[in-house]
């Protein structure tokens, strides 16, 4: 991997991690309403996949969507503004954490319905195919979503129509309090791909290089018109399911120790340095830059006006 790519992946991952820390902090300060779900621990997946996407490629995301949003190059200030219910937010305070979309960058939105984005990405891929472009679509979703009917119907549809779409299953070992071991009677979710007649790849979602490699091939395949791929990335969720989750279903060891033992961001820092792609100082500089941008984003959001009152019907209907 070349230096620029490696550093960019690192920067994206580091940004995601910092964003989650910062928004958790804001939540603790009672500045965020509703719920937030931290993507910490899973950064390598969004970063590794989205590195191959152009602004006119589409993604659909999940309730745990901050990472996808950032990897798809969203503006941090507007993201924070959304979380704080400000008019400058991506959804003008209407959506909040679970619904951030950025259509200008091809992000068709986070989704509060588990599995809800999978058919939508499939439809976006249909658009690309129909209009004869080389755009691709990516559906990000969790291990939990892989047991939804939408997963099944969409993968079959994409396979028979050879749609340019990647189904990226982020196996973070849990769906809320349910461990994957109790949600599947099979070890390897990627095996499901065979039942639809598409390639299924299992990848170490801790290693951004591995994700990057697997995604490269799947995106290229999609752009070549050869159809969809299912990628299952083994990963780990550092935090509880949501901010404040008492995590009664996990051991003390897991709650306290695992985020150190499974850290894709720290890993990336390590191999970048070890492979001589960048010095510690260069990496520190990236960290500082990321942190500064984060604070700029928070400051922007905090200074910006509250969301404006809702206008009906014009906000609900496009033509009225």
């Amino acid at each position, binding site marked *: 991997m070349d230096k620029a790519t490696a550093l960019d992946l690192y920067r994206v991952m580091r940004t995601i991690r910092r964003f989650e820390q910062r928004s958790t902090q804001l939540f603790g300060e009672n500045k965020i309403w509703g719920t937030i779900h931290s993507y910490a621990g899973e950064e390598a997946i969004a970063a590794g996949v989205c590195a191959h996407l152009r602004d006119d490629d*589409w993604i*659909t995301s999940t309730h745990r969507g901050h990472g996808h949003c950032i990897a798809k190059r969203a503006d941090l200030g507007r993201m924070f503004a959304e979380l704080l219910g400000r008019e400058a*937010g*991506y*959804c*003008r*305070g*209407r*959506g909040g954490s679970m*619904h951030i*979309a*950025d*259509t*200008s960058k091809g992000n*068709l*939105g986070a*989704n*509060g*319905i588990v599995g*809800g984005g*999978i*058919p*939508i*990405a*499939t*439809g*976006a*891929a*249909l*658009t*690309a*195919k*129909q*209009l004869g472009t080389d755009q691709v*679509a990516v559906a990000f979703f969790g291990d939990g979503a892989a047991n939804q*009917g*939408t997963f*099944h*119907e*969409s993968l*079959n*549809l994409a396979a*028979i*129509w050879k749609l340019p779409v990647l189904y990226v299953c982020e196996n973070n070992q849990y769906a809320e309090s349910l461990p994957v071991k109790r949600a599947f009677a099979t070890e390897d979710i990627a095996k499901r791909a065979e039942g639809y007649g598409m390639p299924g790849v299992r990848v170490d979602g801790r290693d951004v290089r591995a994700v990057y490699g697997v995604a490269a091939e799947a995106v290229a395949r999609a752009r070549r018109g050869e159809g969809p791929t299912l990628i299952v990335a083994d990963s780990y969720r550092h935090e509880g399911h949501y901010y404040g989750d008492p995590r009664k279903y996990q051991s003390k060891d897991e709650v306290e120790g695992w985020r150190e033992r499974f850290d894709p961001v720290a890993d990336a820092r390590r191999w970048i340095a070890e492979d001589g792609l960048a010095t510690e100082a260069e990496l520190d500089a990236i960290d500082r830059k990321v942190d500064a941008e984060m604070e700029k984003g928070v400051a922007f959001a905090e200074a910006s006006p509250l969301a404006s009152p809702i206008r009906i*019907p014009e*906000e*609900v*209907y*496009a*033509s*009225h």
Partner: protein
Amino acid sequence: MQATETRTGVATREMFYNEALNDALRGEMRRDDRVLVIGEDIAEHGGAFQVTAGLLDEFGPTRVRQTPISEIGIVGAGVGAALTGLRPVVELMYVDFAGLAMDQILNQAAQNRFMFGGQARVPLVVRTQGGSGRGNAAQHSKSLEAWFTHVPGLKVVMPATPADAKGLLTASIRDDDPVMFIEHKLLYRTKGQVPEGEHLVPLGVADVKRRGKDLTIVSWSREVLFALEAATKLAADGVDAEVIDLRTLVPLDKDAVLSSVRRTHRLLVLHEAVKRGGYGAEIAATIAEEAFDDLDAPPRRLAGLETPIPYAQHLEKSVVPQVEDIVRVAKEMLS
């Protein structure tokens, strides 16, 4: 079936309701490459009610996308396609199957625009059909429009005549919002004069299908035809009923109903869907609230009984309003 001229100078042709719908689809698919139809059984077979007949031959399998039986998958693909630049018309073979696809309608299509702060639009038409009368029993005979009217972000269209079917489907496809377009299985083989070429009926405009002064019957879809039949019978008995066809339930042409009731002072809302929780309640409650002093009699609703639709022919008729029921209730209201 030969072309004729109406008084307004527009050429019309007699068509079946399903032909009129076909005409609208064909016209819009010719006009705009982004329009495509997606659904089960719609290609070689031409759709369960022949609405898409012949489209495969003209437009080929990429624009007439026959799908496996995957209702939420295909409606969801329609949402995604609509969000990204196509104008899909997804066919849900029976409205009874909406329960399978409802999440994509309710939580995605209807809400994307609002939820994303105005970034998105979803020019999706979900064409479907409902109603009883063909012995298809409880899982293929429902009328579920009330559900869709309760979902902000959706438009709900239910044409009663071939001309309206063509004009409203054309308008729905050109509309930038998700539209639930609900046909009636027993209307497909009804005939009427239909304007040739481009024909648009705007969403949100009711049609007074019969003028009258003694009471206002508000209805939609197949029951409009029953109301007209009943009005003819009532006229013979000296009762002059006005029949308003809402055509689109959302947006609702409230003014049309209000101004009629202000003249006739009596309101009967008529629909095939189950009465309890039906859209008739919305109309009756609205008029009771906004035209209370204009009413000379309690607003009435005549609608489906509180039961699933039975199979046997004689039973099927017993649970949804028939012409005689309308005549009876109208007379009660005037006595």
